């Protein structure tokens, strides 16, 4: 009996149920109800976000694969493609930090190698509550260990990432993971089923009851099973995935494969129906043939299980022996569970008896799409107002500077990235912590730079601008590595879309990404939406995270943030407006989350991004680092950290154009966008400045590297003069100090 309570447990509305009945021309049985419920869930159908995502710019001359497949792909020359995507594993990481993060890594890696690409790098974007809470520390330790545990084991370097700490994430941490792979452009594999009669194979781990959508489970027949028996937590098995990865890539070198898709969310249901729908085909499988690691599983459970490390393959009929041989070599079983059929039906059998039949188009393409109501949140006006009188902490700039250096958001992330193998595969040419992650592409002269960025505080204060700034920052970071941005992926982390304020934030963020990506010429090739990030009615800050991939023509020209030698000229590119709104300074020093985030002139951002990449490509500059959290002062200090003791002496022009704030604070800690600090051999200074002028980017030589101090003057008045060693100690231990015990 299907009643309202059952629908509710499946997360379906009455209207949606009626739609299912209309589609089928009859009432669904429970297995079918389960199948529809997961396919029409927010997670699989994007029903709240779809109308907005359509606005994103997805085209570009290099785009080989835009949104819609397992991952996006862009052309990087030499017949190769960069394949990449970002995904969230927020909720699972809160429930079980280690396994949640680990299986998140496993999932995104599968998305990449299903495209026929060898995964070559991982990045992560993390958000937690304040670190002084024991729960936050426990979650952080688990998440970092889980990311490392999976990535290190499977042998894909984690080359970069970002992490922030804000109260809004205390009950809902964010774990977003990006994976980058490289494929031959003519050998990209699609998640598509085609060719009537072609066999459908199941490979990888056995199916268990893990991950079956807890809330959608219970029904009259299932009641006797306790929740204990069906935990939502999945345990990652990186060893299994390593075998799967190698076996699949080996199979892809033959031409026996028609299509492949991993079993991620909604497992077998999603992979069968999506593959069939993409190929305009049907599919017939028998769940009795599915390898199971628990006894007595029902068809419902088998179809909805989200057990990890499983893949669905469609193979050309007649090539079965090759498949068997390759998977046997890797001690894996490839099991034929069905065939591709004509027509457009997904037909699920259990020992030959039909247990569910539904049109794949109805499951995939005809899922509901909502234009949910939107409304500007009432809080915005209030928090955007920032008056100089609100800044009550009169700490001198040097004290504020040191406080910023050791705040966890800014402090060195070494405690995190040293737990990640960031060198395996011997491609990492800008080591972790030194800027954007950069991996060379063996067999070519090229390298790829990747950065993930986002700022939830900016998103909270102005979702549209926050999203634009996230795009610009990620692009600037890869430009600072010497790369030209060629593609982007995005992970949109928001609260409950059924609330008009959240939907408004979401729509504005998409507008911001659209505007920025269009202006900067960076197509979006895919991404992920994570909604319902709320605990006890408190939504997270709107957090769009952008991953930008950039291309470096000559790998040896790749740059890091760090000064190379004493005696170099320091040049500030871009213009400082002394904008304090939303800054780390306001938060850490003044205890304020207020104002509007910095303005972003997209034309200037584009000019700067092009200039920095060109200066690097021409070998004119020695290092480049962008000004972001903590503003100019922190960025300059970061250029000196890890340099082996190369300090700096600079004098910058005062800037406090917005309001009469403390001039030194606004100049040094304001976070105006589109600024980059570069170091230059004095012999190249003139040429560098000339290039900047030609590109229309303001540029000023502001000082030089060297000495054992960081000395920063504003309009000739020294505001900060501190020993580099002391500043670096504060920065280097800012995270570690929260974790008891020895790190080594």
């Amino acid at each position, binding site marked *: 009996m299907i009643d309202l309570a059952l629908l509710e447990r499946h997360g379906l509305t009455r209207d949606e149920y009626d739609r299912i009945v209309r589609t089928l021309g009859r009432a669904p049985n429970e297995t079918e109800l389960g199948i529809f419920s997961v396919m029409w869930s927010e997670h699989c159908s994007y029903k709240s976000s779809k109308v907005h995502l359509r606005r994103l710019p997805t085209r570009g001359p290099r785009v080989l694969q835009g949104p819609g497949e397992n991952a996006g792909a862009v052309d990087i020359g030499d017949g190769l493609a960069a394949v990449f995507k970002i995904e969230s594993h927020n909720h699972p990481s809160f*429930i*079980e930090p280690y*396994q949640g993060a680990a299986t998140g890594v496993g999932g995104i890696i599968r998305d990449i190698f299903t495209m026929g690409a060898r995964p070559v790098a991982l990045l992560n974007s993390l958000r937690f509550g304040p670190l002084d809470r024991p729960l936050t520390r426990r979650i952080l330790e688990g998440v970092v260990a889980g990311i490392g545990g999976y990535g290190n084991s499977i042998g894909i370097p984690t080359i970069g990432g970002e992490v922030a700490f804000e109260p809004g994430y205390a009950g809902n941490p964010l774990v977003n993971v990006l994976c980058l792979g490289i494929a031959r452009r003519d050998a990209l594999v699609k998640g598509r089923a085609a060719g009537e009669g072609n066999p459908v194979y199941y490979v990888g*781990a056995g199916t*268990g*009851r*893990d991950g079956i959508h807890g809330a959608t489970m219970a029904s009259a027949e299932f009641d006797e099973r306790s929740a*204990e*028996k*069906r*935990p939502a*937590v*999945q*345990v*990652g*098995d990186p*060893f*299994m995935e390593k075998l799967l990865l190698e076996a699949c890539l080996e199979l892809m070198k033959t031409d026996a494969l028609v299509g492949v898709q991993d079993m991620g969310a909604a497992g077998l249901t999603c992979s069968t129906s999506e593959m069939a729908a993409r190929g305009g085909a049907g599919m017939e499988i028998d769940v009795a043939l599915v390898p199971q*690691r*628990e006894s007595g599983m029902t068809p419902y459970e088998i179809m909805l299980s989200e*057990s*990890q490390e499983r893949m669905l393959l469609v193979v050309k009929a007649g090539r079965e022996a090759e498949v068997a041989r390759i998977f046997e070599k890797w*001690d894996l079983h490839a099991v034929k569970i069905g065939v591709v059929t004509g027509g457009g039906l997904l037909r699920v059998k259990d020992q030959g008896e039909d247990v569910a039949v539904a049109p794949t188009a109805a499951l995939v393409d005809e899922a509901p799409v909502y234009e949910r109501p939107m409304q500007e949140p009432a809080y915005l006006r209030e928090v955007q107002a920032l008056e100089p009188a609100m800044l009550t902490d009169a700490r001198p700039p040097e004290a504020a500077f040191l406080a910023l250096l050791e705040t966890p958001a800014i402090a060195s992330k070494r405690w995190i990235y040293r737990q990640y193998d960031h060198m395996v595969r011997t491609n990492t040419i800008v080591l972790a912590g030194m800027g954007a992650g950069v991996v060379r592409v063996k067999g070519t002269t090229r390298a790829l730079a990747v950065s993930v960025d986002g700022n939830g505080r900016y998103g909270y204060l102005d979702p549209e601008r926050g999203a634009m700034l996230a795009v610009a920052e990620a692009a600037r970071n890869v430009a600072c590595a010497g790369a030209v941005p060629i593609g982007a992926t995005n992970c949109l982390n928001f609260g409950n879309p059924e609330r008009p304020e959240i939907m408004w934030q979401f729509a504005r963020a998409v507008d911001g990404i659209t505007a920025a990506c269009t202006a900067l010429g960076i197509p979006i090739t895919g991404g992920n939406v994570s909604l319902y990030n709320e605990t006890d009615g408190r939504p997270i800050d709107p957090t769009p995270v952008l991953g930008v991939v950039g291309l470096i023509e000559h790998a040896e020209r790749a740059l890091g943030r760090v000064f190379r030698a004493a005696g170099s000229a320091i040049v500030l590119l871009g213009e400082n407006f002394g904008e304090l709104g939303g800054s780390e300074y306001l938060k850490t020093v003044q205890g304020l989350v207020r104002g509007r985030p910095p303005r972003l002139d997209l034309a200037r951002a584009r000019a700067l991004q092009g200039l920095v990449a060109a200066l690097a490509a021409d070998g004119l500059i020695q290092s480049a680092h962008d000004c972001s959290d903590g503003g100019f002062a922190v960025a300059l200090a970061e250029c000196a950290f890890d340099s082996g003791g190369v300090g700096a002496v600079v004098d910058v022009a005062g800037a406090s154009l917005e309001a009469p704030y403390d001039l030194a604070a606004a100049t040094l800690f304001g976070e105006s966008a589109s600024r980059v600090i570069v170091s230059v051999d004095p012999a190249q200074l003139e040429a560098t400045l000339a290039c900047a002028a030609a590109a229309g980017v303001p540029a000023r030589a502001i000082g030089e590297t060297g000495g054992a101090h960081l000395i920063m003057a504003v309009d000739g008045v020294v505001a900060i003069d501190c020993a580099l060693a002391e500043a670096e100690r504060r920065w280097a231990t800012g995270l570690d100090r929260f974790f008891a015990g020895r790190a080594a």
Partner: protein
Amino acid sequence: MKARVFVTLKPSVFDPQGRTVAEALHTLGYDAVEGVRQGKYFELDVRAGTPGEARALAAEVADKLLANPVIESYRIEVGEV
């Protein structure tokens, strides 16, 4: 006093380590080992007046630290081996 805590994955939680060990044993010809589950084992030296007290203390630290209640359960034995 000695308290011993055995921490195991809950029955329905997948145990990749146990599975891998079982497969290795099969490769080595030990087919009579049909299944393996791997867990953790802690020996605690506790200052306690009675076995009951030792058990209570062990249960408390197991709840708090030794076991992850989301995926694991535990069992306690008190006394010398």
